[in-house]
């Protein structure tokens, strides 16, 4: 177990390292980052100054090594735009995005678990098709479009929820709905497929043959087994939701990581952009590790005796 976790952490580290390199190289896509950093109306002298300040005059590998070295020592650099340290800036926003991600995950599960179970039980009936329709719609509706629709209804027409910001829980309702609904279909399909498979499994027939009440059969015997892959998906989806919150956070001006990412992209704030990409990858890798552990805990077949 320990061996395994150490191995996985090693992999995570390797992934993070690769991502860090890619994230670092992203900057050079624009050609000369100094030009981008200098901003509107900068003169040649300003650009040279920027080049010096950020050490952009050195060879790229040296720059990367230097950046990485600082990173390892906990120095995440300075935001070019906000002129503050990247570490606190990013960590400050991470909480909001994590809450949003978890809320969206919650929404997705609340929508998908009952629908998935229903669809599986009434496989190929109109109920199944209805559930599938709801799911496919969620996948088809562009989430920014859905977000705008929500905003129109809940904020403008009914004035029930605040349009934007992140002060209270009400601020999270629409973003979580928009994000969660988009994530729900994946869960629903997985739960449906899992439940169909499990419901067709021999041990379910055994449970029914034992005369157990239908609810016990479905929830104790079936769902318990169908839910195992959902845990892994939940981790992966949470990772995606964190990364995918850019659009939604921007629309609702939710002061989280996604919004910061969007800002840093538009402001050419490379240090922030790099750290966000890196942070999200690390979170993703850790989440999948956590999912594996959770899986092991849920599935006695891989549990360590």
């Amino acid at each position, binding site marked *: 177990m320990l061996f395994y976790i150490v191995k996985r952490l090693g992999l995570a580290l390797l992934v993070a390292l690769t991502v860090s390199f890619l994230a670092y190289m992203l900057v050079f896509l624009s050609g000369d980052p100094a030009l981008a950093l200098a901003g509107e109306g900068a003169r040649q002298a300003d650009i040279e100054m920027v080049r010096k300040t950020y050490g952009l005059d050195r060879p790229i590998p040296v720059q990367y090594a230097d950046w990485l070295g600082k990173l390892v020592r906990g120095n995440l650099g300075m935001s070019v735009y906000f002129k503050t340290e990247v570490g606190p800036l990013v960590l400050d926003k991470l909480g909001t995005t994590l809450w949003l991600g978890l809320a969206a995950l919650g929404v997705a599960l609340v929508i998908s678990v009952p629908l998935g179970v229903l669809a599986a039980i009434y496989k190929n009936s109109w109920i199944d098709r209805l559930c599938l329709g709801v799911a496919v719609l969620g996948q088809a509706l562009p989430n920014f479009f859905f977000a705008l629709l929500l905003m129109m209804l809940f904020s403008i027409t009914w004035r029930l929820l605040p349009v934007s910001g992140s002060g209270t829980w009400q601020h999270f309702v629409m973003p979580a709905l928009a994000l969660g609904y988009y994530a729900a279909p994946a869960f629903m399909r997985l739960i449906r497929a899992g439940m169909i498979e499990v419901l067709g499994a*021999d041990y379910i027939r*055994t449970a029914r043959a*034992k*005369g157990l009440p239908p609810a*016990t059969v479905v929830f104790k*015997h079936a769902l*318990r087994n169908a839910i195992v892959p959902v845990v892994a998906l939940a981790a992966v989806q949470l990772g995606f939701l964190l990364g995918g919150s850019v659009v939604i956070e921007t629309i609702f001006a939710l002061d989280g990581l996604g919004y910061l990412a969007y800002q840093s992209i538009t402001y050419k704030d490379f240090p922030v952009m790099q750290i966000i990409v890196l942070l999200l990858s690390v979170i993703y890798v850790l989440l999948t590790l956590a999912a594996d552990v959770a899986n092991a805990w849920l599935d006695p077949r891989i549990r360590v005796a």
Partner: protein
Amino acid sequence: MTVAAETVLEVQGLHVDIPTPAGVLHPVRDVSFQVRRGETLCLVGESGCGKSMTSLALMDLLPRAATRRATTLRFLGEDLAQASRKRINALRGDRMAMIFQEPMTALNPAYTIGEQLVEHYRHHRGAGPADARTRAVELLEKVGIASAAKRLGQYPHQLSGGLRQRVMIAMALMCGPELLIADEPSTALDVTIQAQILRLLADLQKELGIAMVLITHDLGVVARIADRVAVMYAGEVVEEGPATEIFATPRHPYTVGLLSCIPVPGRTPPGGKLGTIPGVVPSLVGDLQGCSFRDRCAHAQPGCSRTIPLRESPAGQQWRCVLAPEAEAA
């Protein structure tokens, strides 16, 4: 047939229909048989002939799409065809139990053996945890599992196939059922273990005096364990009767063909020709007129496409064939 009370299960005219895109599939057609207390009935036939469907129909465990109808479906005198879902659920696992083919998959991987052994006992009998546990240990010992108490905490994947099948048997016997249906309980196991499991089943059945319906495609198993045999072909029971009669004097050409196919040491010469049944099983979709075996039958004749008479020998053997016993003998 003597006293009615002796009959545990009586099936008359059982049909199962499954609508499919290609038409209605009839995996079970007009099947009739009965099982008495302390008796073992073997349902035998080739793959896909409807053995499992028959057993599932008895337990009301058919797939959602399938429907079942029967002229008579009586369990311990109670009409199952008319019984409510609830009533059937109350009988299942309690008065009638079932064992499946795949011991690897028939147990829920997420729960311990102990949990799975006791849950229906507690549900049907309202027993407390301690009671149920005692009963579980008792039964595990009965199926020959040593250090039973320790096993209760184990998960199915920690047991070998043979052990799992023993657990399945113990599970079926928890509530002391009157009827045990075993659908190919040994097919998935290795030959040596298969023998062990069959022996255990046979012993328990005799000891507890339960009625058993054993489904198999292995004529060797049938010969060793059955009191009565029902041979199924394409959803129908083509021949039924006491095991000794069926093996000694098979009447239906299909039964005859089946018996000729298996190499029997000492009877078939090594390297010699085995008997065969040419052709393939007919589709079960749509209605069937006459004998379903006629296009594979060496004795086929025009009359085969009409209604086939049910013939009965003095020894209690029944079969459906146009050939009269005397004609056949000629």
